[in-house]
């Protein structure tokens, strides 16, 4: 009796895994295939220079003395009309030489108008909320401090706003430290598939692209219409994407607006980054899924795609559940008589790699980018997959635990930078003693190393 019940439960769990993961796999392959076919190409670059609105560029900074000069100089070198450009470095309680660098640039270039924060809640969303009040542009663009935008990026990111339905724009993030470690190489594959294949395919197919909070922009009027940044969200970018979508605004993707970033080089940094994304993303899922389903102006396909996007991190525990159920069946001889076990193992095994980006998406992105050497790293993506799955499950466990007990979750973490030997410093450490580990802010807890950044 107990064995029969165990087999039935395992069966049901495996069927659940297969259905959910199968649906995700179909979606991944559809997007990859669509990209391979170069279907419905949508290119906004022909609009570059057609209209040049007044823009404000935000650069959230916290202890960024090693990289601040690079991004400010890169923005100065951009080919955007200085009369229509306003750059606001948001220096959030830096304790290093960031302020001096920013002030030096502000003294030389009148369109650079620094905003120095000395108090208040830490974290990028909170800083952006304050800085936005000072902005005079019609379009707000955002770059993390360690990014290096190319000369034409501002124009490229501004071009899609010619379309009045476009509320936000996302450019492409390209890792520059691919060869520094195995992890950074694998993450470059993930980014490559995520932008070149998934973002572009979704945009081409008429789905809303995902605003990433950096190398992107938002229309000032649209931001005001949805009530501004959500300072309580750990992924204010995802939050804004869906707030805009539900208010009728679209997010465009500009594949050629490339900006170089530094991806994590060691797993500890990556795990914390992933943990923040999982928490913020899943929070958005809970906040937005009812409104998404009710939205009358969104097609069924758009709603489905949006839900797939919001729920993507839930696939990790579903995979684990499938494995556990398969393991249980392996040890039950009665289960060997039916072909459920091999079928389940096959499907689950087949989906092993398709959690973040399927092979096809990676391969197509690599072909389109012409980065052939990177393709040879693909078999090693298995390691990244296992590492991601564990970290995502752990982050979800914490998220739901905190949600159940009504306590706060992890706060903002400043991703450790390694460029130019930058040492990651505790965000806001200067504002409170190191021993004061937690500070409750609107239901969230900000740890010592809370911070802003990618």
């Amino acid at each position, binding site marked *: 009796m107990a064995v029969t019940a165990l087999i039935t439960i395992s069966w049901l769990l495996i069927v659940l895994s297969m259905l959910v993961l199968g649906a995700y796999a179909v979606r991944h*392959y559809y997007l*990859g*295939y669509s990209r*391979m*076919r*170069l279907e419905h*190409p949508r*290119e906004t670059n022909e609009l570059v220079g057609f209209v040049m609105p007044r823009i404000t560029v935000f650069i959230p900074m916290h202890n960024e003395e090693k990289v601040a000069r690079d991004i400010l100089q890169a923005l100065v070198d951009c080919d955007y009309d200085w009369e229509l450009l306003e750059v606001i470095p948001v220096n959030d309680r830096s304790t290093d030489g960031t302020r001096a660098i920013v002030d030096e640039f502000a003294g030389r270039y009148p369109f650079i108008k620094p905003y120095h924060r000395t108090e208040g809640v830490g974290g990028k969303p909170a800083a952006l909320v304050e800085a936005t009040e000072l902005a005079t542009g019609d379009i707000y663009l955002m770059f993390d401090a360690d990014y290096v935008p190319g000369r034409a990026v501002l124009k490229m990111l501004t071009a899609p706003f010619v379309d009045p339905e476009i509320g936000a724009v996302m450019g492409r993030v390209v890792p520059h430290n691919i060869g520094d470690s*195995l*992890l950074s190489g694998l993450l470059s594959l993930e980014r490559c598939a995520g932008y070149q294949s998934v973002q*572009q395919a979704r945009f081409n197919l008429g789905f809303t692209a995902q605003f990433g909070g950096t190398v992107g922009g938002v229309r000032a009027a649209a931001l005001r219409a949805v009530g501004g940044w959500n300072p309580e969200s750990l992924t204010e970018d995802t939050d804004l994407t869906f707030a805009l979508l539900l208010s009728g605004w679209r997010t465009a993707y500009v*594949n050629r607006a490339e900006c170089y970033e530094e991806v994590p080089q*060691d*797993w*500890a940094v990556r795990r914390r980054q992933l943990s923040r994304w999982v928490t913020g993303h899943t929070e958005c899922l809970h906040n937005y899924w009812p409104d998404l389903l009710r939205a009358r102006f969104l097609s069924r396909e758009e709603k489905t795609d949006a839900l797939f996007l919001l729920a993507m991190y839930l696939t990790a525990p579903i995979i684990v559940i499938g*494995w556990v159920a398969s*393991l249980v069946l*392996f*040890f039950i*001889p009665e289960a*060997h008589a039916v*072909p459920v*076990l*091999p*079928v389940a*193992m*096959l499907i*689950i*095994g*087949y989906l*092993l*790699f398709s959690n973040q980006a399927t*092979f*096809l998406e990676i*391969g*197509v992105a*690599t*072909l*389109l980018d*012409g*980065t*052939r*050497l990177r*393709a*040879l*790293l*693909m*078999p090693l*993506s*298995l*390691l*990244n997959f*296992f*590492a991601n*799955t*564990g*970290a995502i499950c752990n982050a979800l466990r914490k998220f739901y635990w905190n949600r159940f007990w009504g306590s706060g979750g992890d706060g903002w973490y400043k991703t450790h930078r390694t460029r130019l030997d930058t040492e990651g410093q505790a965000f806001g450490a200067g504002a409170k003693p190191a021993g004061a580990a937690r500070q409750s802010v609107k239901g969230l807890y900000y740890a010592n190393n809370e911070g802003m950044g990618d």
Partner: protein
Amino acid sequence: MQLTRARVGIALGFAFAVFILLAYFAVPLMALHSSMADTLLRWAGIPNAGWEPVSVFPGLEPGSGPLVPVPTFSQVSEGARFALILGIVALLIVARRFSLFRNLANFLIVLLLVSAVVNVFFDTFQLQSKVFGQIWLRQELLVWLLMPFVSLLLFLLPQPNLGVGLGWMALVQVYGFLFSVLRFVFCVGMLHHTGLLFMPLLWFALGTLSDLLFLLFFYSISVYRTSGQLWGVRSSWQSQL
């Protein structure tokens, strides 16, 4: 390169043709699989009393499973038990030293521990080699049957030259078959020498995961080569993005 409807149609036709051929010749294929495995088992000195028919899938049977003696936990040699402990320790070291491997290593440790617990507390539980052969064939037959459609997307469509794509497709299919024989013989050998101790781990690592890994290995090489060939015409791709 453009994926025209005609090209997609032809490629899909090839995939279906291979699928139908494989389904039609499934029984002889499984017999060949068993025959090759039998030869390798004899070379490896693993005693096999013969092959018994096993059901695989309705309409695609019978296959056959080997009759290799399998020890229970109490019959397993001290060396095998020591190897289990050594395996766990080695994986613990890997998990400790290489953070990127940690989750994979931890999962493998769990598989070994679960196996150890089941062996210790349910000594009578035994996986017969014939049953293992049945499970294996069910899994691999599915892989062989699905492979043409996976190859369609991974190898046939992205290739500028359809002939080269078909070559990759054939290579993957043949390699998958031969690789399956090797892995099966290794697993049966381990089953004979160590009983059920390592089987969950082997089943996980050498089962579909290995199929996927070799597929990915070939795919990465294929993309690497194709990318080089397409370099000259890449501008025409990107002009249509």
